[in-house]
């Protein structure tokens, strides 16, 4: 680090290590999928050389939303459901910052669902990781919108009543969608590749990460973990190309062109086998901040000029000072 220098310019390259992004010992349960997501994201930060002071992780409320506390970057652990609009405020005003959002299935798909839909439409350069464990964890086991029908929980002791909401199809149904991917916490190599692709996409990257909750949903994903055939790897030259090792285990591979929205919607509808990879990517969708952000330097003189011009519109001049045009 450049500590001690009077100059803010960095005069030499420095390489940050994983430890430079780590902060404290995560307090998630043993076996919680959040740990895998944290590891993938810290690795991403290192590999992409993100400056810790120029990186902001914004979250809402829930187990997943503890995420920023474990990053040695700036973090904003806000209120339930509202991570996205907070992140958007940061993103609009600070093009120099990298903005991430960590959210859960309750935070994003229930209390924050309105913001989620609109975030897709704004398409701001924010990377969203939806930690989807299909259950409310922090409040101790209540059914979430993504809980499969029949899920027994403290609020649905006889099984949940409704079909699960599919975050992928919802996102892919919104105008201006520009990046949708799905990962699973138990395939870390793919998780990393997907997180990296999401980071490199300019626009709103929506990554649903299927995440195990050993405490409240033990064995929920066992059928998929134990049978690689039930994972559909999405492969494409423009998307992800799994390594040889991975391809030996996961043989159910589907060629999927991420520019094909119709196909993406069809793939997204598939619950079993579960698709993993990049479903959709479109670099052409404009970002809201690019449409709105001013490129002018807001000096006092600049503000004054604008203000005086407005005052002129509403000014009543005394007789002797009347403007020539009106005289």
């Amino acid at each position: 680090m450049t500590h001690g220098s009077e100059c803010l310019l960095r005069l030499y390259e420095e390489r940050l290590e994983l430890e430079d992004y780590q902060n404290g010992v995560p307090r998630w349960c043993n076996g919680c999928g959040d740990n895998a997501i944290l590891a993938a994201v810290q690795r991403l930060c290192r590999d992409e050389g993100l400056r810790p002071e120029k990186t902001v992780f914004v979250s809402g409320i829930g187990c997943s939303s503890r995420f920023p506390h474990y990053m040695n970057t700036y973090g904003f652990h806000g209120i339930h459901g509202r991570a996205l609009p907070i992140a958007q405020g940061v993103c609009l005003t600070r093009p120099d910052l990298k903005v991430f959002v960590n959210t859960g299935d309750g935070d994003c798909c229930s209390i924050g669902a309105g913001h989620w839909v609109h975030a897709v439409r704004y398409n701001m350069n924010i990377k969203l990781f939806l930690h989807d464990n299909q259950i409310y964890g922090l409040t101790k086991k209540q059914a979430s919108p993504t809980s499969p029908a029949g899920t027994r929980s403290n609020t649905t002791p006889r099984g949940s009543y409704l079909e699960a909401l599919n975050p992928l199809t919802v996102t892919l149904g919104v105008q201006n969608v520009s990046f949708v991917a799905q990962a699973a916490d138990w395939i870390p190599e793919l998780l990393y590749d997907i997180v990296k692709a999401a980071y490199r996409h300019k626009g709103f990257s929506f990554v649903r990460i299927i995440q195990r909750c050993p405490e409240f949903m033990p064995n929920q994903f066992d059928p998929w973990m134990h049978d690689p055939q039930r994972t559909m790897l999405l492969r494409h030259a423009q998307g992800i190309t799994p390594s040889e090792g991975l391809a030996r285990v996961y043989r159910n591979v589907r060629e999927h062109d991420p520019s094909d929205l119709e196909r993406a919607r069809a793939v997204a509808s598939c619950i079993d086998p579960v698709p993993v990879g990049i479903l959709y990517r479109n670099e052409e969708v404009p970002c809201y901040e690019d449409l709105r952000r001013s490129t002018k330097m807001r000096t006092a003189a600049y503000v004054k000029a604008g203000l005086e011009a407005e005052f002129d519109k509403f000014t009543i001049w005394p007789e002797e000072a009347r403007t020539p045009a009106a005289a």
Partner: protein
Amino acid sequence: MNDTLLLQPETTAASTSKTVTALDEHIVEVLSDSGEGAQRCGQSLGAISARMGNGVWTVEIIPAEIQPPARSVEGASGNRVRIGACGITNGGDESDLAIAFNEQVLLGRLRAGEFKPGATILLESMWRGHSDPKIAASYLQTHQELVKAGYRVYEIPMERECLKLVQDARKGKNMFALGMLCSIYSRDMALAREQIALTFGKKNRSVIEANVKLLDAGFRWAEANLDFKYRIPAARPSVPQIVVNGNTAIALGVLASGMEVCAMYPITPATSASHYLSEVFEKVGGVVHQAEDEIAACAFAIGASYAGRCALTITSGPGFSLKQEGIGLAVMGEIPLVVVNVQRGGPSTGQPTKAEQGDLLSAMFGSHGDAPKVVMAPCSIEDCFYSIITARKIAETFNMVVVVLSDAALATSQQPFPRPQFSETWIAPPPDQGEIPPGARPYDWDEVTGLARRFVPGQPHGMHTLTGLAHDRSSHVAYDPQINQEAIRARSLKLAALAKTLKAPPLYGDPEGDLLVIGWGSTKGAIEEAVGALREQGHKVASMHLRFLQPLPPGIKEAMRRFRQVMTVEGNWCDDPADEIIDENNRRYSALAMLLRARYLVDVDCWSEVKGQPIKPGAIRRALIEKLKASRDPKDAMP
């Protein structure tokens, strides 16, 4: 613009020799169906009068619906203009004169008691001979009632006269009416023509010429046909003045404050501030973000503030309720934030277009837990402008939420004020991006003031996670009882620190005496007018107007001690002690009265009105007289 020729009077009006009555002030209403331009007529009269140097206060009369049915009571749209020889600080009492484009738009105002006994009414006469017998009958009936009730009614063939000049009298009658008013009030016609050129400046010359012709026609018609004429003396202003309504003043304040993000969601009556801001903010590099909902608007502003520069969100009652959780987050995280609440009638959807001061307590205590925030209330149109600049400054100096409580009365009223002189100190310096010194923590609360240095993303070595959870000085989540106690103390102390910088509010009226009236927000002008009137009658009274409600400024208790009685005048509910089941044990006091009683242990009484209208000085005067009378009864006097 080369309008020299156009702006010369066409002919010198052949004025019949009428007696011109000199007036101190008059209140005029222009009423029409929505879309017939009564608003523009009234506003133009206000602007012309202000330019002549009269005191002016204009208020919009707005129907709640976008396209209310024509000729309907609830569809009345227009403007109310109070013109005075001296400075005018409020909308005043009942109206002296009205021009109505049909009798229906008059009825609602009449039933609401908005006209003085014997007021002059100029009524469009085209309905008398209308082909629909129902309409003609309705007109005749209303006309007879008005005459019977003692109003001075003049039937004016506005339609007929306008059709001599234009194809569609609906477009242009307002300018004919303006011409009539210019004659009635002896307005400067050169200024009037100029005003039309300014108003229609964006349109082409033929539009301006057509409107000037109508104006002149109305003027000539009134000169020739009306048997009365007034003069309201004016002193030409010596300094440039700004004429805007309260919401535009707020938006101009946003420009001047150097804030660069306003996040909002459409809501009445706050939205017009954002409309204007949307038009101009980008010219100074700002952004109006229309969020998907009120909560998102608040959260967006919080995110923008957290990232560097204080942002604001503008809303009205229901939206303010929705923002409360976000406001609590900003309090907890010590993120500067300006929240403007243009209050309207409540609760729930209430009266969206009407004035009320019902949100004081929710502004102070709205979020759950102990969430100290600053609450200010502008008391005039001018103050709407400066309050925003002050609010931004306080927000960033103390890392606090500042709530600015305007209301529908200020939002739609216009009053000229001296053109502000720009100062660089209004604008915040760019966010600090320097290195955080070793060992510094994001919440290093000062032992005395509770203040801590603000860390902004981008600052090297300042990395931490801001959290809405209870946290220690390092922003680490803390469940430790001592840490929570310390943190709440620090956030609370900031209010006391701000209070130390405030000045005692000045007294208007007697320095000591029988009754002190305390008010806040939009009622200042009306209260002072009532107090002034009582003092002229020899009463020993004064008023004090609070611009800071939280923290309260110093000097209030001392001022209260110098008066035998203290009462607040407010636009929010208080129970009437005369009601059968109301007594001292269950009476609900008005918001400010409750606060003053709790803080100063003084028996503060209150008088309030929640009729959705700006409180009239006459109503306040009567309430004060009642209070003074009652206090002569020794059993009611304070010990």
